[in-house]
């Protein structure tokens, strides 16, 4: 085998596959063809963005976070307040929110460097809940339990006003998601992205080959915080409203479910997880508004017991023994 073959083998993994751009564009077509789906698509896009952000720390860097809503919430409120008190331009607001989220995440990153997975889970969870309490306490700023009302956004790029049917919002969040997917794709395939996986797999060895593991983790966390904040900002922009639920444990838990459903350490895992989870929720809660949680539960149990791969290939269910 020649050096060139080695080179190709390494590049092969990171090449953009043919179906990927299709995947990025397909949702636009869905909204264009079925404008009624805009709310659903919008929500999926926002959560997909949030999910890939979590996957960067959870899947790639191996940091167990159960408080990722902290950054989503910071983004949601930063965007809302910025629009309300500074300027209602969405893109500037988005960038501002990302800055706030990234900064928050950077500060928080110092708390996640030590301890077992459970410790990290609890610290991240604790941080998000504390932010929630602070938000609740600062009612004068955040609106407290009533939420931040009266956010009105300018048209996107000065051209596309947010419409009541949610179509602009859906395009907007899809566009943001697409941009981030392209960026994200590049990042996880970069030396930096690889070093995160190295750290996740074996921190001692990563350290001993010369990686300043703490710094990399802080960087990844900051980045993820900024992306999560972008998701929060898009949510505020498309709803004209931010509520403290954005910080809630349930949101952190939901996004975790999405990432795991779709598969961790995989660019499209979060996207697929968001589509499946939100789609499922949507269908089930329409069918049985009272008991949809039951079926979600059944789905999760089945998914894990049958296995993600096998669930989508039912014909394998009855073949093969315990070793299969």
């Amino acid at each position, binding site marked *: 085998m020649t050096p060139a073959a080695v080179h190709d083998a390494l590049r092969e993994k990171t090449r953009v596959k043919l179906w990927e751009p299709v995947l990025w564009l397909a949702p636009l077509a869905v909204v264009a063809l079925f404008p009624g789906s805009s709310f659903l698509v919008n929500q999926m896009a926002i959560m997909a963005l949030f999910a890939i952000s979590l996957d960067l720390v959870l899947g790639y860097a191996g940091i167990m976070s159960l408080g990722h809503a902290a950054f989503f919430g910071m983004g949601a409120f930063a965007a809302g307040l910025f629009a309300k008190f500074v300027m209602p331009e969405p893109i500037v607001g988005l960038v501002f929110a990302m800055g706030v989220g990234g900064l928050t995440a950077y500060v928080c990153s110092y708390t996640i460097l030590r301890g077992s997975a459970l410790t990290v889970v609890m610290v991240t969870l604790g941080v998000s809940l504390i932010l929630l309490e602070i938000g609740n306490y600062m009612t004068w700023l955040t609106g407290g339990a009533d939420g931040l009302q009266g956010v009105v956004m300018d048209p996107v790029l000065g051209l596309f006003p947010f419409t009541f049917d949610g179509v602009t919002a859906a395009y907007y969040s899809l566009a943001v998601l697409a941009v981030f997917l392209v960026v994200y794709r590049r990042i996880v395939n970069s030396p930096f992205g*690889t070093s995160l996986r190295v750290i996740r797999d074996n921190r001692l060895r990563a350290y001993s080959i010369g*990686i300043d593991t703490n710094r990399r983790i802080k*960087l990844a966390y900051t980045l993820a915080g900024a992306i999560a904040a972008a998701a929060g900002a898009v949510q505020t922009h498309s709803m004209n409203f931010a509520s403290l639920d954005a910080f809630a444990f349930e949101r952190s838990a939901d996004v975790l479910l999405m990432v795991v459903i779709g598969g961790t350490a995989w660019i499209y895992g979060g996207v697929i997880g968001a589509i499946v989870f939100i789609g499922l929720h949507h269908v089930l809660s329409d069918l049985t508004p009272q008991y949809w949680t039951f079926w979600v539960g059944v789905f999760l149990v089945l998914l894990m017991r049958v296995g993600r791969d096998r669930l989508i290939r039912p014909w394998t269910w009855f073949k093969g023994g315990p070793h299969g």
Partner: protein
Amino acid sequence: MAEEPYALSASGLVMRFGGLLATNNVSLNLKKGARHALIGPNGAGKTTFVNLLTGVLRPSSGTIHLDGRDITTLPMHKRSARGLVRTFQINQLFETLTPLETLAAVVGERSGLGSKMWRLLGADRNITERCHALLEQFRLLDVMSRPTSQLPYGKRRQLEIAIALACEPRVLLLDEPVAGVPASERSDILAIINALPADMSILLIEHDMDLVFSFANRMTVLVNGALLMEADPLTVSNDPRVKEVYLGHGAGTDETAQSEVRYA
């Protein structure tokens, strides 16, 4: 005439685990290009000593110098960046990465690309060429695209050493590199070690005396955390104390007696 500083020099290292003195005032100097072996009974503190040198553990007292510069309090990754690299007695690998990715990550890291986010890992020809060379040298080309967790033990051991060499060490610490490697494959690893550049300083820990005596031109014996002696191989193998605590007298089966003769 100014003396050239030792490549690596440890003096008066002490390490306690609770009541146990795992390293008791140990000093050791490696010249540039040294071929030095560290032996001693099980639990004598050899691995602990390596852990102290590389920064996995902080010594209770004592100092460590690399090329004349004090690195006693330097974090592990900085020591490694300065060329002090080790292998582990128990493999420390990146299980979900392939050998190719692993080596590319290490080589990339050494080229200072580690925190680059906006270029692809495989974009750099220099990196892939270096990876190719390492894969070839360690006979990993055929498995380079399989996840590390699926490799047979022998290959895993070779990858362990390949990672260390990918770090471009100037001082290399090998902790039982052939542990668990079948006799028939030991010669491969031995050949690799013997072919390492002459100006690289190497400290070898091994219980396989064939390997030790064919490799080292200087030896240190640790017992109960303390330095028993440092000398050339012949002196060590003939020392009654070393026989007593480590090599044995061959009092058992005649077979072991025979092989002991070969050590000397």
